[in-house]
């Protein structure tokens, strides 16, 4: 599998996906 960080679009999309994941992590931490 290709590393998404090798392309700029892969990097941006990974960042957006990570934002959504971390948003729910933070929401659950806040109860």
């Amino acid at each position: 599998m290709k590393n998404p960080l090798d392309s700029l679009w892969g990097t941006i999309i990974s960042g957006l996906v990570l934002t959504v994941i971390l948003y729910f992590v933070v929401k659950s931490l806040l109860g």
Partner: protein
Amino acid sequence: MDYVPALARWIHFLAGVMWIGLLYYFNFVQVPALKAATADGTGAGITKHVAPRALLYFRWAAVVTWLAGATLLSDKFVDAFTFRHGMAGIGMGAWLGTIMLFNVWVLIWPNQQKILGLKPATDEEKNKARRVAFLASRTNTMLSIPMLFFMAGGWSHRAIFGL
């Protein structure tokens, strides 16, 4: 002393713009430009005159950003980093910024010194350094997206995002 957090916020933004601005410059401009310049033999100008200056401001802006951010958190510093007392949003931003600072000083800068010839390295070591520095820089670009979300909205607009 209310002027301390006010000045810290101002400095945090100034240094942060320089740090993340140069990070985006590296990823969106310099890396593709260097690829094209290397192909036609004009890359030396970038590696000799541009990259060392950009890296100087980049790595020290990262330090100033972090220190100003820590000053801004003040007595909430521990609460933010331990995600306690409603500080999880800004705490996540602070953790991401801290990981990015680590990447700058531990992965990007030492490897860039080898790539730019500021530190002696064999061709094989330079090739490895190139890959590590590139991936660390791309990782920071990826992390900057959630980092800025939590920095911008995690505290001042936390109610809108339900944080």
